[in-house]
């Protein structure tokens, strides 16, 4: 058998974005032997890209705000498909998690009386996002990273985890991977594992996600037999850059709209007024004048329709472009230049200013931006128990974007950063509890280990096969074209056929060069997860014959009453078969249900 390095810990956290770091801090505070394993360098995870802020009902700007309002906004934004208990915990605990960051050194923007300032975002009734200009994710990851380093948490960087292995009792016992710099294999054994591996967005052509977002955690959990829920819900953020083509998909923060920016079509019209859905009509302005007054007076005016939840705005932009009213490069115009002073724009949105100036040669204080939808976030994911983030596999926990349930059918902007903190901490606590209660030394089966090594080495040992880049390219094109923002049964079925073909092609993938820092080989080892996750998404999308949140079916344009009551649960059986079963949503208690009844009139 191949030689390998091994490490043993109490708790291993895979992924060092916000959720992973927060979980690790919790386990380390308990005095457990804790380590983080991450695919990039520490501090480079996708959390760093989050711009607008972290939603928490602190009530610093609008004292009317409280966790119940936040809970209600989150559930309505998620089209009521959220796990109510997760949405409740999130709304209740987010403020404490933000204040905690401040004690650890975060420097948020301030109100006039020295408290943490909060900004408006889509779907949030009150200005609720704690932020630092438009680089909140950087502040969050740096604060957590510095805290983790100060605590002496072990960090294994640039290490790709390939598979989770279980012991004879079915508990996850090991993570098998390799060091990207050396290409050598490594095994981490531990009593509990937390997956915090982020997104799946790299399987689409136009995405705000980095190369890392290949759904490793989603796939590893599914391969280990964990339940996956609602994988069909993928958020297309309404505003990504569209030009130049090489930067297409890079995120333009919702903060632009929160701070006064508006969307216009090629005729100069604020088209969002034409797309206000009935569900939000009562709380959305129907004239430009009212929408404009709202920025200064939330009490007597309703919010402008540009700040509807992301799924609504993305679909509307899509319709305008399809209707021939798009911008020159196939987007629409996002205009803040004509509405706010140059000084205000540069102060509130400094990185957007630089991003457009340097990548597109566009001065956003002078002219509108061109924007269009970009694949951004997976609402679905690994099924977890709301209070503990325990998956359905013993010893395995999941937090952050790779877990499912919290955001239902559509995530509100700003709820992701707070999700990372709230559920990262909870996963850390529960994983620590599990590790402390687990008896015996975690064991691995040498045969299984050898099989993982062999599978990873196969592309390097083959010659004359296909390039992993070609397979990735065709996968991205398939998912963009057939499983994108607007879906139909025939295209989804076609996508399954394409995925079958891509899996067949993957069997002959070959890469050249050494094992040391070889991106071609690294991609070849990412592809199995990308293919698995794409299949889960597509299968869910076929069965959900309705339009809801981040899942829009051209052939079923309305929400379905029956599908409103179920999660679509998918599993991969030990022999590789995919199963799908609708299961009833957890029932919301009566006292929370009244929050929605009160608001109905």
């Amino acid at each position, binding site marked *: 058998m191949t030689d390998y390095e091994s490490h043993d810990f109490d708790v291993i956290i895979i992924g060092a974005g916000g959720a992973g770091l927060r979980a690790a801090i919790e386990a380390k505070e308990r005095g457990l032997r804790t380590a983080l394993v991450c695919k990039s*360098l520490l501090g480079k995870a996708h959390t*760093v890209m989050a711009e607008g802020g972290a939603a928490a009902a602190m009530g610093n700007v609008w004292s009317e705000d409280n966790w119940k309002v936040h809970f209600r906004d989150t559930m309505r934004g998620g089209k009521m498909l959220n796990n109510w208990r997760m949405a409740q915990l999130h709304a209740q605990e987010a403020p404490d998690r933000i204040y905690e960051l*401040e004690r650890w050194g975060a420097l948020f923007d301030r109100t006039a009386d020295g408290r943490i300032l909060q900004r408006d975002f889509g779907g949030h009734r009150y200005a609720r996002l704690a932020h630092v200009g438009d680089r909140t994710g950087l502040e969050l990851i740096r604060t957590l990273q510095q805290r983790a380093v100060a605590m002496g948490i072990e960090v294994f960087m640039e290490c790709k985890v390939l598979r989770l292995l279980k012991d004879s009792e079915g508990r996850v016992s090991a993570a098998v991977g390799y060091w990207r*710099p050396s290409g050598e294999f490594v095994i981490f054994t531990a009593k509990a594992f937390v997956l915090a591996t982020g997104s799946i967005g790299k399987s689409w052509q136009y995405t705000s996600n980095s190369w890392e977002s290949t759904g490793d955690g989603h796939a590893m959990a599914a391969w280990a037999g964990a339940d996956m829920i609602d994988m069909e819900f993928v958020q297309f953020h309404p505003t990504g850059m569209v030009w130049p083509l090489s*930067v297409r998909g890079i995120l333009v923060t919702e903060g632009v709209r929160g701070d006064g920016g508006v969307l216009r079509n090629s005729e100069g019209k604020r088209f969002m007024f034409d797309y206000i859905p009935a569900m939000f009509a009562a709380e959305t302005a129907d004239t430009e004048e009212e929408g404009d007054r709202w920025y200064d007076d939330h009490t007597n005016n309703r919010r402008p329709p540009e700040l509807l939840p992301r799924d609504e705005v993305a679909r509307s932009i899509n319709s305008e472009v399809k209707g021939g009213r798009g911008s020159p490069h196939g987007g629409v115009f996002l205009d803040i230049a004509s509405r706010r002073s140059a000084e205000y724009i540069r102060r509130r949105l400094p990185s957007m200013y630089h991003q457009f100036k340097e990548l597109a040669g566009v001065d956003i204080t002078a002219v509108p931006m061109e924007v269009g939808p970009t694949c951004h976030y997976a609402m679905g994911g690994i099924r977890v128990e709301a209070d503990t983030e325990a998956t359905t596999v013993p010893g395995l926990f999941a937090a952050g974007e790779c877990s499912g349930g919290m955001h239902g059918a559509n995530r509100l902007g700003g709820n992701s950063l707070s999700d990372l903190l709230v559920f990262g901490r909870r996963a850390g606590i529960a994983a620590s509890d599990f590790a402390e209660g687990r008896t015996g030394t975690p064991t691995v089966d040498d045969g299984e280990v050898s099989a993982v090594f062999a599978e990873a080495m196969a592309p390097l040992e083959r010659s004359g096969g296909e390039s992993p880049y070609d397979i990735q390219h065709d996968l991205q094109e398939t998912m963009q074209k057939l499983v994108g923002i607007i879906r139909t049964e025939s295209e989804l079925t076609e996508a399954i056929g394409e995925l079958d073909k891509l899996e067949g092609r993957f069997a002959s993938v070959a890469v050249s060069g050494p094992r040391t820092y070889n991106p071609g080989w690294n991609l070849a080892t990412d592809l199995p997860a990308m293919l698995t996750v794409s299949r889960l998404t597509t299968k869910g999308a076929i069965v959900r014959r309705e339009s809801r949140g981040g899942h829009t079916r051209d052939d079923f344009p309305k929400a379905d009453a029956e599908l409103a009551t179920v999660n679509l649960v998918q599993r991969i059986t030990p022999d590789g078969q995919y199963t799908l079963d609708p299961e009833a949503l957890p029932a919301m208690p009566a006292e929370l249900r009244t929050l929605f009844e009160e608001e109905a009139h």
Partner: protein
Amino acid sequence: MADVTLTIWRGDPAGGAFTDYVMPSVEGEVVLDVIHRIQAGPAPDLACRWNCKAGKCGSCSAEINGRPHLMCMTRMDELPEGEPVVVAPMRTFPIIRDLVTDVSFNYTMARHVPPLLPRAPDAPDGTFRMMQVDVERGQEFRKCIECFMCQDVCHVIRDHEENKEHFAGPRMFIRYMELESHPLDSNDRRELLRQRMGLGMCNITKCCTEVCPEHIKITDNAIIPLKERVVDSSYDPVAWLGRKILRRTKRSAAEAAADAPALATPTSADGPTPTVAAGITPPS
């Protein structure tokens, strides 16, 4: 459109050479886009780091035509037309392969920073009050995306491997200044900076400031004020007397250092060549 030529350093710790790649020119591309097309075509094993592709994560630092840049923020049409674009790894750090270097020195130095020690909260609910003007100094330094290009161009360590043991470098100096100017902090890191972190070795050539992609005024706003603070603390007789006779409000460096992170535990952050960090001893 015309072709573009990228002249890229390829190799490993044993040595390497520049290789030319001729690619079709595409409108609006940055250097990293061309690197990606080379990976997807002629050189699938060409090693480089990248993540966000939007200048926010600081992963893709390289020396382009002899000067450090983020590859994701350097537009091809801003480079001299018709000439090859020379792309080399950062010189100050040991080579892993091609454009990827071992930047573990920076992570080692980060572990020596005594963390924030917050003062008592201002409000009964445990929250703090800070004015925008007071957080803005620290916010400038917290814009740092850790691209390590300031470390790359710093004369003290660029061609002086032996100095790395005793020199935190510009990236860490802005971290120290951020903490020193933090409205909540009650730690004192001045003696640590003077004795162990080599603050005195900086001769203020401002090369770090020039290459900062976040336009942080590293020298003017961090290094010079830090030098002043350290000098005040060490040599100012009034300050010395004050420390002797007045009740200190800040903790001493020794006390601060006692809280410093565990320095002896090596982690993977030390990378394949831990020799860089080997000579560093915990401050006492």
